[in-house]
């Protein structure tokens, strides 16, 4: 019998990661509750689509549960989850960007998601308006810049953590974040 959820909820990420590695699904449930919101923000700001973001967050957390025995440093569980999520979201965003520049093959026509569907009022009402506006600005940037900017400005990761999460050098991460920040600032000027 696990201790009551309230008691588990008071434990550190490290303690929860250790218990989850020991096979306790209740401890992993608390980690899910603690991190799914921030993972959703990361995925949404990279992808700009609610359903895709929800899928990425679910995949991220299920992958983490399956690979938890490979996590050597339980203190790093927060950054590790962000790494899985941001890489998955960036892969999807890159694929989408490539597809957008490819000539449409007939077999793709049925599968291709119409970007205009994201402007559909019924769909738009699902997501917080501020988040949507920011995602629209970020969608005009390269997916790699989006991911760097989001991990820095939204998730609060250090340059070193971002470099490790996205498998780039620290100076590359700094450069991308600076470019992305300038881009977002320019857009914000236009809002005024």
């Amino acid at each position, binding site marked *: *019998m*696990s*201790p009551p959820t309230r*008691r*588990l909820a*008071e*434990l*550190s990420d*490290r*303690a929860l990661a*250790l*218990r989850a*590695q*020991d*096979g*306790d*699904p209740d401890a*992993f*449930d608390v980690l*899910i509750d603690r991190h*799914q*919101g921030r993972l*959703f*923000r990361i995925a949404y700001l990279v992808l700009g689509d609610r359903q895709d973001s*929800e899928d990425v*967050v*679910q995949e991220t*957390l*299920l992958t983490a*549960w*399956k690979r938890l*025995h490979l996590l050597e440093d339980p203190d790093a569980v927060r950054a590790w989850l962000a790494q899985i999520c941001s890489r998955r979201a960036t892969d999807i965003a890159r694929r989408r960007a490539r597809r957008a520049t490819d000539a449409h093959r007939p077999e793709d026509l049925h599968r291709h998601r119409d970007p205009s569907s994201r402007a559909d009022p019924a769909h738009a009402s*699902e*997501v*917080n308006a*501020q*988040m949507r506006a*920011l995602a629209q600005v970020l969608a005009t940037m390269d997916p790699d810049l989006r991911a760097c900017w989001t991990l*820095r*400005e*939204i*998730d*609060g990761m*250090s*340059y*070193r953590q971002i470099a490790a999460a996205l498998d780039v050098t620290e100076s590359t991460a700094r450069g991308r974040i600076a470019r992305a*920040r300038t881009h*977002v*600032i320019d857009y*914000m*000027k236009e809002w*005024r």
Partner: protein
Amino acid sequence: MDGPSRPGDPHDDQATRNYLEHIAALHRDWDELESRGDDSVQLSRRARSALSEAVRADARHGARVDMPPTHIGPYTLTELALRTLIRDTIDDIDGVVSLRTTIDYDPGRGWNSRGLPRRVECHISAVETTPDLPGLAEQVRSAVRGACARELDLPDLPIDVHIEDLHEH
């Protein structure tokens, strides 16, 4: 600076200040929406519930562990079952939360099998106000040894206790 941007740096120009204020406001609003359980900034309840079910359905059971045979015949259990028995025993002690259990085994008879458990090491977290940590460790050792003897017919199993962390309540 090695953290996210924050408003208030006097050297920032107006555009940068606007940007920083905007980002700070986003954080405040999103945190508030999330704390209210608003689905617009997090997994929907349906997705959250499906995730929990998937996690439980995909538990890693680990290798088969030999146990002392009963009068009817031999039996085994999974590493997960063994660790769960020990974890639950520790969690029943006031002021203690089990963190992780490592177990040494005799050599197994093949791939994905372990021999009899030889030694157990329990990593625990104790309430920080615990007045007598050695006494608490002894209580954990005694409870785990008792459970292994009673439930698994493994008497006198050496139990090491490592207090790895202290928590508040």
